[in-house]
Each structure stands twice: as structure tokens, then as C-alpha cells.
């Protein structure tokens, strides 16, 4: 079954056909007559190729509406501090703000719900966005009825692998985590590469991102149905053990992965030191860019993440949305911008831009779009599929403390100096205290 068949089968399976584009519908969503001409909006966002591509299109928006939007880039590592100041200031330094899903629950007071505005513009959010991304923009820990913004950037995880090495050794991408270990062993025996680039270092909860897939695959979760800590359940203990055993017992990850960050592992893959790398799909660009990688596009393959035997592939998700500052005095103009920037065509044009390798997409239509999938070899169909069953990032106010606790626990477990069950029991009891507060 070649790529083309896969794509056709995929779209058919998702129950939607190809869509022809060129609709002027979205332009009609903007208010006619430039009622906000002359307004200047300030948007707090982070540097990402996707956003830079958006910024390049702003002239068009200004021509349509007369609204000038200023992109204020903030260091990615310091976005939270800026948002904190904005929250405390209760005045509007920025009219629009970009927020990452897990920070949402602590920042509800910052945003003006846009439900009424969406109804006015007749935008059907559920039709546009996969549930996993849309819930990040809702209050009430993802289940509330208020929508706080437009999802603008969202990621799923994939397993990247060395197509050439696999072909030479007659291997296929692993479907389960156990298969991944076996494949890794073969690779380490037959080449001087390590099997899989894991990242267990303590940085921004990165060592939890693959761990969650182990956890969900085994039927466990961070919190149980009542919202109580469940990280020491038998499933969680087994999942954690399997996760760290990739390095500790089976040794199919490089020794240095003990302190690797996600980008260290990316560099490892790009330098040809590991054969597999489970990570966010946007890492693709860096793996095939000659400036950052020794690999060529022909060498980089991708597949859905492995899972537990008999279970569907899972994915952790990461979503960002643009929301309107509650204290902004230019909310209507801000909504015009949100309406415009969230058009499917804009996302699609960035995806198809030949000068970039930007794969990020959050809208269902684009995920199953034929041209997009042809360009990226079906990656987005994989994404759409994974998103259907994605449990999504846990959304609750104490995420910062609990995730910090878990990543510290795991980074310590991986040094091999502590045991899994006692460490997780300790984590659970601390988590209970945190959640009570």
C-alpha cells in the first residue's frame, strides 16, 4: 500500500472527503466598512516559524480592516512571567495574549470569553477544531462552557525514525513499546547508533511527555476520576518502570539521555546518533534542515507513537490559543483579528509554503487536507487519528506543582538510585497535599 492509498484510505476512514478551496466565506466574516480603522492592537506571542509566517501576512489584514497589529515577541522561556504581570496589572499591556494549555487553568481571570462573539460570527468551534485542542481553550479545566480563545498552535507526537537504517536492516516502525525496545536492540547490535533518543532530564516537564503515553497505554492516569493522585496506582508503577527501563534495563537509549532535554535528543537524532525519536511533530523541520541536521528528508520517516499491545496509539497534546485580554479596551477589534488569523486558509497556506517546513496545524480540515498530506507524507492524517483518541494534557490549577513533582521524581528515578514504587508513593502523598490547598 503506497502513500497515496494510505491518504485516500485515511480520509475515507475519517468520513470526510477532500474539500475544494477558494472560498471567500472567511473574508465575509469580518465586519464590512472598516469600523475599527486606525486601531492598534498589541499581541503577546512567542517566536515560532509559524507565527513569523503569520506576521508576514499582517499587511493584508491591515488593508482589509485598517487595524494594525503589533506582534510583541517575548522569550518563550519567560512567557509565563509576562502573563503573570499582565494578570496582576489588571490593565492591558497587551490586547491579545497567547497561552499554553497547561497554564490556562491558572489564568482564567485574564481572558474575556468569546462565546457570544463566536456566535455572532457563526464560527462552529467543534467543527473546526479537534476536541483535544478545543478543550485547552475552555475554562473549567477543559470542560467549562466558556471558550477563552482560538486555538492557534497545537502539537501531536510522532515516532521519527531512520528510514534508511530500518530499510537496510529490514525493520519496520514499532507498533508497541516492547517492539521499540527489540528494534532498538537490533539497531545497537548492527550499527554504532543507539536505539531510541529518550529525554529524561528535568526541564519544563519534558520528561513527562512520553511517560504519559506509557501511563495511558497501561490504563493509568495522573489523577483519578475524583481528581485524586493516581500516580502510584499499579498501572502507573508498571508504566513508570517500563518507561525508565528503556534506559536502565534494556539500555537502548544513549547513556547521556539521563540528563537530555527534548532538544538534546533532537540533536542526537540530527547527528545520526540514534535511530528513533518519539517527539512533537514540529521537530520534523529541524531534522531535515541542512543547517541543523546531517539528515536528508529521505532518511527521516515517521509513524504514530507505539502503544501497548492491542491498544490504540495515544498522544500527548500541546495546544496554544490566542485570547482577548479581559481589560483590553479594543476587544471588538481584537475579535476581528482573531477571526481573520484563525481562518483555515491561513493555516493551510503556511503548511503549503515551500520556503518552510512548518507542519503545525490545529484545524481538522487542514489535518485531513489532501495537499497538506501529500506534502508531508500523511503526517497530518496520523495526527488527526491520534487526536481523536487523545486524552490530552491534564488541565487543572495545580498542574505546575504536580508536574514539577513528577518530573523531579522521574529525573531522580532514572539515575537508578531510587526505586519506582516508594518514589511514586511519596509523590502521591505530596500530590495529595498540593491538591488540598
Amino acid at each position, binding site marked *: 500500500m503506497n502513500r497515496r492509498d494510505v491518504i485516500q484510505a485515511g480520509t475515507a476512514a475519517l468520513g470526510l472527503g477532500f474539500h475544494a478551496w477558494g472560498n471567500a466565506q472567511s473574508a465575509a466574516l469580518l465586519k464590512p466598512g472598516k469600523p475599527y480603522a486606525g486601531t492598534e492592537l498589541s499581541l503577546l506571542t512567542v517566536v515560532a516559524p509559524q507565527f513569523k509566517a503569520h506576521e508576514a501576512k499582517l499587511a493584508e489584514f491591515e488593508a482589509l480592516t485598517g487595524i494594525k497589529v503589533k506582534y510583541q515577541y517575548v522569550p518563550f522561556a519567560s512567557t*509565563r*512571567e509576562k502573563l*503573570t504581570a499582565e*494578570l*496582576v496589572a*489588571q490593565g492591558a499591556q497587551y490586547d491579545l495574549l497567547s497561552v499554553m494549555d497547561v497554564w490556562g*487553568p*491558572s*489564568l*482564567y*481571570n485574564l481572558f474575556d470569553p468569546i462565546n457570544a462573539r463566536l456566535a455572532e460570527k457563526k464560527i462552529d468551534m467543534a467543527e473546526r477544531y479537534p476536541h483535544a485542542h478545543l478543550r485547552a481553550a475552555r475554562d473549567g479545566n477543559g470542560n467549562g462552557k466558556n471558550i477563552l480563545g482560538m486555538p492557534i498552535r497545537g502539537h501531536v507526537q510522532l515516532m521519527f525514525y531512520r528510514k534508511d537504517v530500518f530499510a537496510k536492516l529490514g525493520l519496520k516502525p514499532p507498533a508497541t513499546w516492547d517492539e521499540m525496545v527489540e528494534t532498538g536492540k537490533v539497531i545497537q547490535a548492527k550499527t554504532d547508533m543507539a536505539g531510541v533518543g529518550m529525554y529524561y*532530564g*528535568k*526541564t*519544563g516537564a519534558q520528561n513527562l511527555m512520553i511517560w504519559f503515553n506509557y501511563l495511558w497505554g497501561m490504563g493509568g492516569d495522573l489523577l483519578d476520576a475524583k481528581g485524586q493522585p493516581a500516580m502510584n496506582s499499579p498501572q502507573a508503577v508498571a508504566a513508570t518502570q517500563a518507561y525508565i527501563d528503556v534506559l536502565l534495563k534494556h539500555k537502548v537509549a*544513549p*547513556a*547521556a539521555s*539521563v*540528563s537530555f532535554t527534548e532538544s*538534546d535528543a533532537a*540533536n*542526537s537524532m540530527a*547527528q545520526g*546518533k540514534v535511530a528513533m525519536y518519539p517527539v512533537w511533530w514540529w521537530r520534523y523541520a529541524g531534522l531535515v534542515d541542512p543547517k541543523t541536521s546531517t539528515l536528508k528528508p529521505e532518511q527521516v520517516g515517521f509513524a504514530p507513537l507505539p502503544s501497548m499491545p492491542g491498544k490504540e496509539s495515544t498522544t500527548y497534546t500541546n495546544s496554544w490559543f490566542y485570547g482577548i485580554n479581559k481589560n483590553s479596551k479594543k476587544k471588538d477589534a481584537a475579535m476581528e483579528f482573531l477571526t481573520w488569523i484563525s481562518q483555515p486558509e491561513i493555516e493551510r497556506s503556511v503548511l503549503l509554503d515551500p520556503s518552510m517546513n512548518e507542519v503545525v496545524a490545529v484545524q481538522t480540515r487542514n489535518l485531513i487536507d489532501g495537499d497538506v498530506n501529500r506534502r508531508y507524507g500523511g503526517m497530518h492524517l496520523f495526527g488527526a487519528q491520534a487526536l481523536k483518541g487523545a486524552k490530552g494534557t491534564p488541565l487543572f*490549577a*495545580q498542574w*505546575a*506543582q504536580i508536574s*514539577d513533582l513528577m518530573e*523531579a*521524581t522521574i*529525573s*531522580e528515578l*532514572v*539515575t537508578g538510585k531510587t526505586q519506582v514504587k516508594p518514589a511514586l508513593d511519596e509523590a502521591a502523598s*505530596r500530590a495529595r*497535599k498540593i491538591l488540598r490547598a
Partner: protein
Amino acid sequence: MKRHRAHARSCAPDTASLRKPSVSLLRRIPAQWLLLTPALLFVAAMAVFPLVYSFVLSFREWRLAKSVTPQGWVGLQNYWYLLTDDPDFLEAIQVTSVFVVANVLVTLLVSLGAALLLNKAGRINTIARVLLILPFVMSPALVGISFRFFLNGEYGIVHHLIGLAIPSMVDTIWLADKTLAMVAVVAADVWHWAPYMTLVMLGGLASVPKETEEAARVDGASAWAVFRDVTLPQLLPVISIVLVLKTVFALKAFDIIYTLSNGGPGRSTQTLAYFVYETAFNYYDMGYAAAAAYILTAVLLVASGFYLRLVFRK
């Protein structure tokens, strides 16, 4: 003569004290200094404000996620939890003690040794002295990130060089080992600060009278005796400056640790400053963070109280 009398009128109350210079002549504050008042008020305000604000905040509950303004008063509850119910805080205290003591000691020894080394004329010494400022002006974040990359197991230059020099360490992953991570963090901070402290020490050495040293040497004293009995006592003020400065900044060090080890592995390099930052900006628990900050401040206040009593003795 006229100027003298005018001056005398504003300073000296009686002619008797004019005949013999006495301490009281200089110790009264003349009117001109009141011109300084705005500036001093500004300094006082900017100085007092953080102390008072964080003190007051430490008695309140303020969860930023729930309320954009401070919530209710909780008395000593924050302090109580910190000291009795927060293993992370206690671990942070332990980590901080190790970090600060190691940091200050190494910096002191290195900077004193380097200053003695560089305190002679000579081109190579001049070159060294010019270079001393460079590590200090590198942003702490840049230093932290660079050192993290230097120690990377796959392409880190320091990792490789040490592996060449000490074969048993060729596979050690520095940042995965609690002790080595602490060594790395201390080394990075020492690299950042010690060269500058050397400059400070050099400044101090400059005010040591050479004649006394020469005299002692001519009298036949060994180099070590000269150092111990003449140089060192004269250097004590400068050494104390270095000691206090480095202690304060070691306690405040954050960016360098955040970028180097992120407090890991586990929490083995998470100092108090890190703890306060995380609690405030990540956990959004502002009152609690203020209390933690104030425990740190209280310790420093007591220590500097003692120190100042010594300094102001004259």
C-alpha cells in the same frame, strides 16, 4: 581668612577646638548635606519598600490563580508550613548551604591566590588583569547554558577533555549525578564571579604599604611570614567585602542554576532562590513565596547585623 571664619562659624562652636584638630570638627553634619535629602530619601524609599512589602505579604494568602489581589490574612501559617511541612523547602535549605559554603570558599581562595599572583608588573600579568572582567559581564544565563553544553555527554567539550584526562570519567554524565551536578553549578558560578573578585582583591592589595612588606623581608622573614603577618591583616577589609558580597550573591543565584541544571537531578541543585522563584512565578503562591524569601532575608539580616557591629566599631 574670611573664608576660614565663615567656615568656622558653621562648623566649630568654639575657638578652642580650632587650635587642635579634633574628631568633632568633621563629625558634625553641615547644612550642605541636607541638599542630599531628596537623593537619600529616594534610596531609603526604594530600599525600605521591598523589605516592608514582602514582610507584610508573607502573612497573607495570595493564590494568583484564584485572585488578582492578595486574599486574606493567615498569620504565621506560611512560615509554619514552610518549616514543618515542606520537605522541598528543607531540602532547598540544605542544598543552599552546600552551594553557598562551597561557592564562597572556592571563590575566596581562587581570587586571593590569583590576586597575589597578578600583583606584579609584567606583560603577561597585565593581559591577565584585562581579561578578568570578561566572565563577569557574560550574562549568567549564557554562562549556565554554555556550561550545560560543555558538559553534554555527546558533544560537550569539557566532558570530552575530562574523559581524556581521567579515563574513568569518560562515561560519566555530569548532570545526572547529584554531586557532580552541584560541582558543575558551583564551578559555573565561580567561573562567573572569581575573576571579578580577583580585581577587588587586587584593589585591596594596592593599598597594602609596600614599605612594611619590604622592611619585613629585609629583616629576613620568609615570604609566608610576610604574607601572614603583614599582607593578610591589611587585606582583611577587602577579604570581608569579598566574603559578604559572594555570600549574598550566592544566595541570590538563580539564572545560572536554572539554565544549567534546572534544579536537577531531582531537586539536588534547587536552592532557596530557585524555590522562591518557582513558588511565585510557577506555582502562583505569592504569600508563601514571600515567607520563604523572608526566612532567607532574616538569616542574612542577623548575620549582617553582627558583621556591621564589627565594621562600625571604629
